[in-house]
């Protein structure tokens, strides 16, 4: 029996466990409460009393709403119920679960999740709330509660406690996933195209000086920076390998190629692409680190290619079209490995699209205005991108499954977003 046969048998054996829930909505192995797949379970968030209760409840319900996996039911007024919950009442209101929030003695939050169907407490936990109330750190603590509650309800951890790096006024900024706390990253000069290190504490970006561009890796906590140059003049569009050890970026004088450099500088730069004078730029790694997608004009207009991470087996990812619709760029490989999101020229304007790695099916996600430069959220479901639909370039968040959109940034023009990984904070 060949390895392939063995793999096929394994897949078959596993199939009943992972069969799409749509076929048998109420069966299958899953974490979280039971609800009909393809719908968003209703979560009733009970009124809350105590210090900053309104803020906590508002942040939490908004986070769960932005997660697009839960249908949040949160009436504005009322007193918290006392005694045993009237589960059938919440069932009639469309709730599959009820969230009960109470301040605890330690200044934190006591959280109880009730499952309405069986009428029982499903999960309970005390969360600390760090820092001064309403401060950035305190808000992040609340976001972490939201993300855990989303995991309790849906089986998938939320992405509220994440941040987005972006470019505003030619330098680097970051903003919370809900649009709060936009602030410049200190110590950064002229910057383009930020990306997060998988560890979440570092970022790489292109620094633009009068004598050229170079790649900078900055420790966002310590403020230290290291610069990377393969060939003087042009060094841009960095990407980290998923293991966080390598940095791949575009460099060259006559055309640009992708080069791979160990972050610690322990080895000489390795040339990944051989473009022969063409532009090869914007690398993005598959989550297993074995392949990467990039933009190249080696066939004429910019197109997306994928290649083994050592440069072997380069292959056209996006198929050719006609006329100006050939322009495709800004690839971003989804954290679950299934899709590459990109910008594509449609009737003279850029739009956001995704292509499936398995079936190469392309899906266009936007229609209004000019939409560019998508970057995946760590949930492999949401995309942040630059859109001109509001009149100026701003960051917007798209739920690729429902098509729901929300504006993330306001004020001065913002672009070139990068979504952080989920931060793992030791407690």
């Amino acid at each position: 029996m060949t390895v392939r046969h063995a793999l096929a048998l394994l897949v078959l054996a596993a199939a009943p466990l992972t069969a799409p829930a749509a076929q048998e909505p109420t069966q299958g192995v899953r974490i979280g409460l039971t609800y009909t797949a393809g719908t968003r379970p209703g979560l009733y968030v009970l009124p809350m009393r105590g210090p900053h209760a309104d803020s906590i409840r508002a942040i939490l319900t908004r986070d769960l709403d932005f997660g697009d996996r839960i249908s949040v039911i949160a009436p504005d007024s009322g007193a918290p119920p006392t005694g045993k919950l009237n589960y059938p009442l919440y069932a009639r209101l469309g709730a599959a679960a009820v969230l009960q929030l109470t301040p605890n003695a330690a200044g934190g939050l006591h959280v109880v999740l009730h499952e309405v169907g069986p009428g029982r407490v499903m999960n309970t936990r005390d969360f600390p709330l760090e820092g001064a109330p309403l401060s950035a750190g305190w808000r992040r603590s609340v976001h972490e509660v939201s993300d855990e509650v989303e995991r309790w309800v849906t089986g998938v951890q939320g992405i509220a406690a994440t941040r987005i790096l972006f470019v505003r006024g030619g330098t680097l900024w970051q903003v919370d996933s809900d649009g709060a706390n936009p602030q410049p990253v200190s110590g950064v000069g002229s910057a383009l195209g930020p990306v997060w290190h998988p560890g979440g504490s570092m970022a790489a970006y292109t620094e633009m000086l009068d004598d050229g561009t170079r790649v900078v890796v900055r420790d966002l906590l310590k403020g230290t920076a290291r610069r990377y140059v393969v060939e003087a003049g042009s060094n841009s569009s960095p990407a980290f390998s998923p293991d966080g050890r390598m940095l791949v970026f575009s460099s060259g004088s006559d055309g640009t190629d992708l080069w791979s450099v160990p972050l610690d500088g322990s080895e000489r730069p390795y040339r990944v692409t051989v473009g022969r004078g063409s532009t090869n730029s914007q690398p993005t790694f598959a989550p297993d680190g074995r392949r990467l997608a990039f933009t190249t004009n080696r066939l004429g207009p910019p197109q997306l290619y994928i290649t083994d991470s050592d440069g072997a087996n380069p292959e056209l990812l996006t198929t050719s079209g006609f006329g100006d619709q050939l322009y495709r760029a800004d690839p971003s490989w989804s954290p679950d490995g299934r899709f590459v999101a990109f910008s594509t020229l449609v009737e003279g304007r850029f739009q956001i699209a995704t292509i499936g790695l398995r079936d190469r099916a392309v899906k266009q996600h936007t229609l209004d205005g000019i939409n560019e430069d998508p970057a995946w959220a760590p949930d492999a479901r949401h995309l942040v991108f630059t859109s001109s639909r509001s009149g100026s370039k701003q960051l917007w968040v798209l739920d690729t499954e429902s098509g729901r959109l929300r504006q993330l940034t306001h004020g001065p023009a913002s672009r070139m977003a990068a979504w952080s990984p989920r931060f793992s904070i030791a407690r």
Partner: protein
Amino acid sequence: MQRNKVLLLAAVAIAAGSTAACQPKPEVAPVPTVNQDSIDAANRARAEAEAAERARREAEERARREAEERARREAAARAEAEARARAAMDAARAAFATAIYFDYDRSDLKPEARALLDAKLPLLRANANIRIRIAGHADERGSDEYNVALSQRRAAAAKKYLVDQGIPADRIDVVGFGEERPAAMGSDETAWAKNRRDEFEIIVGGETLRLP
């Protein structure tokens, strides 16, 4: 009648008295004889001296004016030469600094771009010490990051042309600024066309340029 006699006598007496009181009469000074010739001679001499003085002054004045005029002409000529040289230098600098333009998403040189690059060659050849930087730019359309690479390729295309014409490659730096430093604001073809460009800058030796 008697009365008339008295008066006459009195008058005689007075006359006699006064005659007796008079001094002896002095010799009369001889009246000088006027020599008109010498007067004329003196006048002539004086006129001649005055004329000579006038002529001298006039000559001096003329010489001074001529010197001034000469100086003015020389200064003017110098200024004109300097202005011509400056104009020639300005023209050479302007020809050098003239941007070249590209088509959308293209980095190949158009014929007019080649002509503009040719116009830069004399200055580059006359000043072997200068070092230049070619900065490529892109319009706002297209991927921001890809445009950095595209603009760098535009700069590299101009460098390759100059190197092919004999300018040493190590005297030319190239850099791509993408769409980050537009020459014209706006979101129409007029602005875009102005932004798809290479700019040229002398980064070493620009203060002491020699004319071609």
